[in-house]
């Protein structure tokens, strides 16, 4: 009897005695996960992504050669099986089995470059959503939370930015970053930033560019979500017992809107990947010789009539990655979307 009374209320909570709200949210999550695992396409997509992540992390071990190693005598060589598939290459291609997918115009191993290229695409796939979530959710939830005039002004700004042709804007931004941060004296902040970008192979500015153009959608979405949650009884209850704005925001509103936001971001990942690939394709993305699939497709596209393998293999890598993220994103949306419940 007396022993039971001594139990810490916090422990009670852990044992499942209190906090029915978190428990309900958890079961909803578990429910969604169960549905996700039943979705074969999503599982396939998730598995491909896991394999890709492993390949990207252990690229140094998996790849046969360093990505920048040039063997000029081996330029444009291809192995037998590649020549058999792309039969037009037969008359003029030199055969070398040392390169599993062939070598490019300066004799770099295509497979190794594709493997290292996974690093770039996957980094963008994970950092892109984080940046756009950070900016977008902060902006959107402030706007939705305070409402009224603040909301009006903040959303008009988003409307104006929405009118920017984002692809053109990002090209302009990249040109701005690339040239502004190059010729600088050491010691300044701008110099440090450009050094960091150099070390990241040009990825830093791609992140900034994507972040600056992709957050508006997130801001609108999270504003809408905050508006719908703001008037709920539990928020009112929290306010009645004297909770401050920050506490309401972080412990009552944000946890309840995060699901749809994550689903939306997962669905947006293919767009980030293809933006990076496109920027590298037109030559203002990653700095050479950092291998990016977009840059490889662009290099290969120059010789697509003579050596199609040089553009088709990196293109396949990009397409498979986009497939995987699309499958996973679709699966996540279906799993979290209550409207689809019972239809399967």
């Amino acid at each position, binding site marked *: 009897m007396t022993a039971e009374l001594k139990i810490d209320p916090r422990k009670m909570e852990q044992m499942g005695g209190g906090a029915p709200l978190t428990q309900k949210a958890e079961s909803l999550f578990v429910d969604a996960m169960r549905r996700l695992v039943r979705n074969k396409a999503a599982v396939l997509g998730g598995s491909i992504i896991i394999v890709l992540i492993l390949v990207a992390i252990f690229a140094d071990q998996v790849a046969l050669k360093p990505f920048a190693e040039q063997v000029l005598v081996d330029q444009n060589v291809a192995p037998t099986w590649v020549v058999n598939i792309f039969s037009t290459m037969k008359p003029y291609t030199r055969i070398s089995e040392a390169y599993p997918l062939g070598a490019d115009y300066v004799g770099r191993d295509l497979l190794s470059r594709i493997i290292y290229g996974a690093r770039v695409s996957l980094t963008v796939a994970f950092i892109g959503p984080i940046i756009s979530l950070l900016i977008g959710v902060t902006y959107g939830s402030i706007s939705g939370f305070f409402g009224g005039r603040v909301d009006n002004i903040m959303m008009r700004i988003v409307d104006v930015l929405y009118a*920017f042709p984002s*692809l053109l804007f990002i090209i302009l931004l990249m040109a701005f970053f690339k040239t502004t941060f190059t010729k600088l004296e050491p010691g300044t902040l701008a110099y440090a930033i450009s050094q960091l970008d150099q070390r990241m192979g040009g990825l830093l500015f791609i992140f900034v560019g994507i972040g600056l153009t992709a957050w508006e959608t997130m801001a609108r979405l999270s504003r809408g979500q905050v508006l719908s949650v703001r008037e709920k009884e539990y928020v009112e209850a929290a306010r009645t017992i004297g909770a401050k704005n920050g506490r309401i925001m972080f412990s009552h509103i944000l946890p309840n809107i995060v699901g749809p936001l994550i689903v939306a971001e997962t669905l947006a990942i*293919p767009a980030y990947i293809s933006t990076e690939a496109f920027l590298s394709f037109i030559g203002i993305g990653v700095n050479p010789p950092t291998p990016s699939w977009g840059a490889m497709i662009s290099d290969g*596209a120059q010789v*697509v009539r003579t050596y199609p393998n040089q553009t088709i293999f990196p*293109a396949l890598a990009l397409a498979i990655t*986009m497939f995987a993220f699309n*499958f996973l994103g679709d699966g996540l949306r279906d799993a979290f979307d209550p409207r689809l419940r019972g239809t399967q």
Partner: protein
Amino acid sequence: MGRYIIRRLLYLVAVLLVVSAITFGLMHAVPGGPFDREKALPPEIMANLEKRYHLDDPLLVQYFHYLSDVILPQFSTQPPSVSLEDDALMKFQVGGIYVRWMNFGPSFSSRSRTVNDIFRQQLPISGQLGLMALLVALTIGMPLGIFSALKQNTIFDYLAMSVAIFGVSVPVIVLGPLMIWIFGVVLGWFPPTGWGSKPPYVLGLFPSDLSWNGFWKYAIMPSVALGLGSSAIIARLTRASLLQVVREDYIRTARAKGLRERMITIRHALKNSLIPVVTILGPMFAALVTGTFVTELTFGIPGMGRYFVTSITNRDYPVIMGTILLYAFFLVIANLVVDIIYAYLDPRIRYD
């Protein structure tokens, strides 16, 4: 409705002003100028060039100079000369007065052409490509979506949705080289690069020669490459929306009063299921219009894409400004048109 449209048009002007200010600031913040060369020009020539293009004025003066050239119409009683300064996108005659309007200025990198020339000759090509891609998106996407919704959970449904996922996942820079290799090189059906139609254009946009060799041979591959992704989005949206509409009460009512299934599908279900599809057409048109850039670079099409990318590396300020302003204008107009169509399709929506 009229007041709503007027308000939106005023908003359009505000948006374009902001867009122009941001673009102007950003592009002048990029170091280097349009006349920087590997071997520096003599200072006197440099000074003359800058004076000639008013680049020695304060930035604010340059900005307002540019705006007034674009916005304010110029009137004169004499016909305008053919010199580059007197060029403008719109030139027409009212009574005895010659009007020039929307002068986007000279191009710094191609000295013999103005930005107006570039718009007149290159923009129609991008426009044709964008419209063709929209056509592809609609003609593939909507039937696919309707079909798979009507045959829900059959093999056709799964097949159609797999095609749709393929379309969403494969970007133009992947699809482009693949199609060039398969249809251009191996099968030899289409020329791998280039664009058929040449000026003059009908109504300033449409190709005058619609023969196989003059247009279609070149247009089919890039339009499909660009439109396929959008068609997949439309297909999935149409399917989802139709599936939702079919469960509505008014469909049950229509069935209960004995209408034929075909009638119910066409008259009641389809029309209502198109509403969400229309809402996405605005952003989609925007994506296609800017997406033409990627497609043009992949297929070697002489549209706006190449000019824009090289104009940035060349610091060709008027081309950068003109292109971004024009595209922003298209985006806002597209969204306005979509909102108006939306109100027309769904009578419950009223703007005031």
